[in-house]
C-alpha cells in the first residue's frame, strides 16, 4: 500500500492538533452575552407584580415577609445602590461580560469573572481553593468555586448576603446556597440556577435562563449615586403591618387567577396543581386601591419635634 506524502502531512497535522488539545477540554464562557427573554419576560423586564408568588416553593415565613414588604423600602439610602445578588442577577435585564483568568504556566482557566450592568464583579474560582470560613464577610456575589462536569461548569456559591427570589419582596436569606450549571451551545449560554434556602424555601428553587453571544456589545459603566428620594423622618423603615397590604390580590384579579394559587408554595410548582387550580374560587374583581390606603400602612415611631 502506498501512502501519499500529502496524506502523511495531513495526519501529522491532525496529530499535532490533537496533542495541543488538553484532555480536560474546558469550555470557554468568556465573551459578551446579551440576555434573551424567552422565559418569564414579564417578571424579568417590567418586573413581577405584587402578591405573585405562584410557582415558587416559598415557606410561610417568606410569604409573610413579602406580604408586609413595601416597595418604598428601596428608596432608603442603604438600598438605592443594592445590586441583584448572584442568584437573581441572571434574571435581571442586564447585559453580561464574562472574562477568564488563565494561569500563565499551566494555561488552565483558573477563574471566570461574571459582571453585569448594575452589578459587581463575581469571580468563580476554578483553581481548587476552599471556601472561606463561615464567619467571613458575605457579599452580593457570594463566594463561588467551579468544577467541570464534561463541558458543563458546575458552580457552588456560599457567603451570599440576603437577597430576593423576586423583585416583589420575596426574600432569600443569607443562609442560602446556590448551585449553577453553565452550558454553552455555540452562541447560546444556558444557565440553570438552583437555590437552597433553609429559611425561606421548602424545596430547591430551580430556574433556567438564556443568553446569546453579542460580539458588538460592551457593558458600559453604571455608577450609582445615593440621594434623599423621599422626605421622611429619620429611622423610618417602610413596611406594611401584617394584614394591611391592600395590593396582594391585584395580580390574581387582573389575570383571573385564584388568589390561593398566587400565594405560591411548593405545591404550585408541579403540573398536578393545574387540576387543583380548576377547583379553586375565582378571584375578586379588580378594585382601585385609594392612594390613602397606600400611604397609610407605613408605620414607625412618631416624628420627633423639629425632626430630621
Amino acid at each position, binding site marked *: 500500500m502506498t501512502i501519499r506524502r500529502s496524506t502523511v502531512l495531513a495526519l501529522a497535522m491532525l496529530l499535532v492538533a490533537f496533542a495541543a488539545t488538553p484532555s480536560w477540554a474546558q469550555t470557554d464562557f468568556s465573551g459578551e452575552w446579551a440576555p434573551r427573554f424567552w422565559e418569564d419576560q414579564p417578571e424579568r423586564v417590567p418586573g413581577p407584580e405584587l402578591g405573585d408568588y405562584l410557582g415558587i416553593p416559598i415557606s410561610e*415565613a417568606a410569604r409573610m415577609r413579602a406580604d*408586609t414588604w413595601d416597595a418604598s423600602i428601596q428608596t432608603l439610602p442603604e438600598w438605592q445602590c*443594592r445590586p441583584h445578588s448572584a442568584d437573581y442577577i441572571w434574571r435581571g435585564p442586564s447585559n453580561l461580560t464574562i472574562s477568564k483568568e488563565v494561569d500563565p504556566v499551566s494555561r488552565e482557566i483558573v477563574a471566570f469573572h461574571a459582571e453585569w450592568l448594575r452589578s459587581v464583579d463575581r469571580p468563580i474560582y476554578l483553581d481548587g481553593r476552599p471556601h472561606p470560613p463561615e464567619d467571613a464577610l458575605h457579599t452580593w456575589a457570594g463566594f463561588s468555586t467551579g468544577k467541570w462536569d464534561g463541558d458543563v461548569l458546575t458552580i457552588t456559591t456560599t457567603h451570599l448576603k440576603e437577597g430576593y427570589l423576586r423583585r416583589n419582596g420575596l426574600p432569600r436569606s443569607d443562609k442560602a446556597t446556590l448551585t449553577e450549571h453553565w452550558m454553552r451551545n455555540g452562541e447560546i449560554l444556558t444557565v440553570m440556577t438552583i437555590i437552597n434556602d433553609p429559611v425561606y424555601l421548602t424545596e430547591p428553587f430551580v430556574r433556567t435562563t438564556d443568553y446569546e453571544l453579542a460580539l458588538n456589545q460592551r457593558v458600559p459603566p453604571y455608577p450609582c449615586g445615593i440621594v434623599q428620594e423621599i422626605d421622611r423622618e429619620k429611622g*423610618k423603615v417602610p413596611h406594611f403591618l*401584617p394584614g394591611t397590604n391592600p395590593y396582594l390580590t391585584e395580580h390574581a384579579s387582573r389575570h383571573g387567577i385564584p388568589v390561593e394559587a398566587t400565594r405560591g408554595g411548593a405545591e404550585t410548582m408541579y403540573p398536578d396543581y393545574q387540576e387543583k387550580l380548576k377547583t379553586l374560587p375565582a378571584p375578586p374583581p379588580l378594585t382601585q386601591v385609594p392612594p390613602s390606603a397606600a400611604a397609610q400602612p407605613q408605620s414607625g415611631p412618631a416624628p420627633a419635634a423639629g425632626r430630621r
Partner: protein
Amino acid sequence: MVVSRSHVHRLLGRAGACAALVAAVAWGAHPSAQAQPGVRVLPVRGNVYMLLGAGGNITVSVGRDGVLMVDTGTEGMSDQVTTALRGLQRQLDLRDPLPIGGAETRSTVAGRNIEAPAKPIRYIVNTHVHPDHTGGNVKLRAAGRTFTGGNVAGNIADAGEGAAILAHENVQVRLLTPPAGQAPAPADALPTDTYYTDTMKLSHFFNGEGVQLIHVPAAHTDGDSLVYFRGSDVIAAGDIFLTTGYPIIDRQRGGTLNGIVDGLNRILDLSIAEFRTEGGTLVVPGHGRLSDSADVAYYRDMVTILRDRIKNMVDRGMTLEQVKAAKPTADYEPRYGASTGFWTTDMFIEAAYASLGGPKAPPAPAAPPARGRR
C-alpha cells in the same frame, strides 16, 4: 430533680418574669461561647482582626504599638485568647520582619531565630458589662502593660501594671453593683478609664490609626460603646448588633429596644460602603459573622419592623399573651428565632413589649448613681 436552664427559662417566662433576670443569670453562656471549642481568628482589615469562639466576639488591633482589644470574652477562654494573640503577633513578625543588618557594632546574627517577646496588651475596651465580653478582663489586663512615667510613675507605684481598661462609666457602675445575689467584679476587672460623655478618643494613634469610643444610650444596656477604628474603617459594635438572633434587651441594666434601633442607625450613619452598598466600613458584631453596612441595614430593618409591629399591638391595648399569640416575628423566626437556649423568641417579645410600654410591664430599674463624679 435536675432543672435545666431551658426549664428555668420556661418557668420564668410563664410567670411573666422579665427576660432580663434570666439573662443576668445566664450571661456568659451564650451559644457561640459553647458551640465550637477554640478561638478562631479572622482577618478584618489592616491591623484589625476578629477573634471568635471566646464568648462574645473580640476585635483586636495588633501591631508595632502592641495590642488593643475590644472585649475580652469569657473568663475561661482567656488563655486561648492570649495564645491567639501571640499567634497574630508572630504572623506580624513574619510579614514585616525587622531589617537584617544595621549599625557596624550591632550584628543581627545573635538574634536570628529567637522569638522576641510579645508586644504587650496596652488597651482593653469593654463595649458593655456582660461577662461574655468582660470575663477575661482580669487575666488579659494582667498580661498587659501601661507605659507611663513622670509624676504618675513616681507617685503611683503600680501605674504601669497591667493594661488600661476603657469603658463607659455605666460599665464600671454595673460591675460594682450587680443584681442581687451576684458578687461585684474584682478590682482588676474594672475599667481604669471611663467616660460619661457622648464619645471618648484614644489620645494618640495606636498602630497607625485613631480609635474612638461612641456611647449609645439605653440600647443593649445603659453602658454600650461602639468602637470605631478610624483608619481601618472598622466598627466593633458590641451586642447592639448580632447576626445570630433577635436583639438582646437587658432591661435590668437599662437596655431598651428603641435604643438598639438608634444604635443600629448610628452605625449606619458612621458607615460608608465601598461599592454597590457592600464592603467599605466593616462591622464586627457582638456575636456572629463579620458584616458590613448592608448587613447592619438588613438587621436594622428587621428590628425596626418588629418594633413597629409590637408597638402597634401595645398601643391597641393587647396583652403580652395576645402579642405572643399574634406571632409578630413569624417571618423572621426561621432566621433569628429560638425556642430554647440563651435568648428565645418569647424572651425577646417579652422584653420588647415591656420596653415599648406594655401595660403590664414593670418599670426598668434605674442605673445606680455613679460614684465620685459630677
